[in-house]
């Protein structure tokens, strides 16, 4: 069954800006799906329409088979939303924020409070339940928003940049929790600027740009499309002149550090042979950027060349 199905979804704002140009997108039940795109590409508009915060101009939205136009309440009950910005009442207690959200979905106060405790506990906020929200740290506020979105046990969780501004330790603990949630059957749609996050978590991906879906594929297939990989090489001795290596593109970062673009067909093994022929000894190797980031940047740059800013 499809968790989400968008058909010819279009949005034109009052100022005439066409944010979505009739997009089509399907997300299967149980998927961990990445929706990526540069700023202003249409991600937030898409999420806004699905979660009833933005009125669509035309097109259809189905969530678990429910039509947003005719079965709005069923659609709403199926979705949990973690927005980009912290948007809870900063003066309320964490427990009340989650329990009130459960109440809006028709869960009685007594059960709502129990559910709030459960969600806060799972997200490591059990001891902060009676804390006023504004006193929580940035990472805790992000987790509180996830707890709030889970208050009514939604089947589809939409996370709009959930780890923005969160330190790496908390981000990774959130990944563990989201993976676990996905394993228990919750479909997750994620937008993020940390492409490493999408590459690590998501099985399928759509890239949106200028209001159009420009790529929609399984993560493995998408990454397979890359025709080269970039690495950083740490050298034993400083390099005076940059050697010319056929097929490889070398860039000097500093005297002892090089960046190299390696075409897939040549591979990295041959690079080491050539470097040692030139008397260059490599002592360290790491990825210059993650593969998805590389793909994403290629896509955005190609698009920028085709549509230069006016």
């Amino acid at each position, binding site marked *: 069954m499809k968790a989400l199905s968008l058909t010819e979804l279009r949005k034109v*704002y009052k100022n005439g800006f066409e944010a979505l140009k009739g997009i089509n997108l399907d997300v299967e039940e149980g998927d961990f799906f990445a929706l990526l795109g540069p700023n202003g590409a249409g991600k937030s508009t898409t999420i*806004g329409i699905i*979660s*009833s*915060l*933005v*009125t669509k101009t035309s097109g259809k939205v189905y969530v678990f088979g429910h039509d947003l136009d005719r079965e*709005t*309440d069923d659609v*709403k*009950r199926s*979705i949990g*939303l973690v*927005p980009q*910005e912290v*948007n*809870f*009442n*900063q*003066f309320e207690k964490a427990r*009340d924020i989650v329990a*009130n*959200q459960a*109440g*809006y*979905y*028709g*869960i*009685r*106060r007594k059960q*709502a409070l129990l559910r709030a405790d459960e969600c806060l506990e799972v997200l490591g906020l059990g001891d902060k339940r009676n804390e006023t929200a504004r006193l929580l740290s940035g990472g805790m506020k992000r987790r509180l928003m996830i707890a*709030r979105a889970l208050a*009514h046990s939604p089947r589809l969780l939409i996370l709009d940049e959930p780890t923005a501004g969160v330190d790496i330790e908390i981000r990774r603990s959130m990944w563990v929790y989201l993976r676990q949630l996905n394993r228990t059957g919750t479909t997750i749609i994620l937008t993020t600027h940390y492409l490493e996050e999408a590459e690590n978590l998501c099985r399928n991906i759509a890239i949106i740009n200028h209001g159009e879906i420009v790529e929609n594929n399984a993560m493995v297939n998408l990454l397979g499309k890359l025709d080269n990989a970039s690495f950083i090489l740490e050298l034993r001795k400083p390099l005076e002149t940059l050697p010319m290596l056929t097929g490889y593109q070398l860039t000097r970062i500093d005297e002892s550090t090089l960046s190299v673009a390696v075409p897939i067909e040549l591979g990295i093994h041959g690079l080491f042979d050539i470097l040692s022929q030139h008397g260059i000894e490599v002592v360290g190797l790491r990825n210059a950027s993650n593969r998805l980031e590389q793909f994403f940047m290629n896509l955005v740059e190609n698009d920028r060349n085709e549509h230069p800013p006016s």
Partner: protein
Amino acid sequence: MQRLIAFQTILYKEIHRFVRIWPQTLLPSAVTTSLYFLIFGKLIGGRIGAMHGIPYMDFIVPGVILMSVITNSYGNVVASFYSSKFQRNIEEMLIAPVPGWMMLSGYVGGGLARGLAVGGVVMGISAIFTDLKIAHPEVVVLVFLLTAILFSLAGFLNALFANSFDDISIIPNFVLTPLVYLGGVFYSIDLLPGTWKVISLVNPILYMISAFRYGFLGVADVNVERAVLIIIEFILVLLLWTLWLLRRGTGLKT
């Protein structure tokens, strides 16, 4: 049933909000009322003399109570709803299966509760300063409820259109306050010369205060039944307008 729980949740949240910040919401009316009674009642009230044959201090009690109800019902809804819009936590309700009319009912219920709480406090203070009697309790309850609902609706409407905190202070300061003060809280319109009396009759708040005064003292400047009908008409107009705006998503959705 689920919708009833959603309504209860909004109402609980609204009541909890104004109780939590009681020094900002309940205390100011108590202080202001005490000052009114001290200055207009005790200090200069004796020089003013009776109105409609009633001692001045007793005469101003209903108006002072209703004035608190009007400003607090309006203020509660406009401040709370606009803050929710500003902080964007209104989205908590917009993404949930809470229809617009349910959201409106919850906020109006909150405004009504604050009006009731403040009205109770002011009435308690009035009982200290005056010999408080209620001639027609049913009129007092009816006018109180209708007025609180009307101004809660008006506060909601103001917040719906507001785009800044300035927008939620313009109407209370420059429209509501003059209308309340010129609505006969401290005087009977019988004291006014012909033209001013006619102009006063255009002020809807005059009808509310007058009908409320009738409930307490048995005297009124206007026909009480007509006054109640006017309040109901205003409620219906604001209610239908607000529901229409909510349906369109005005001020809430893009």
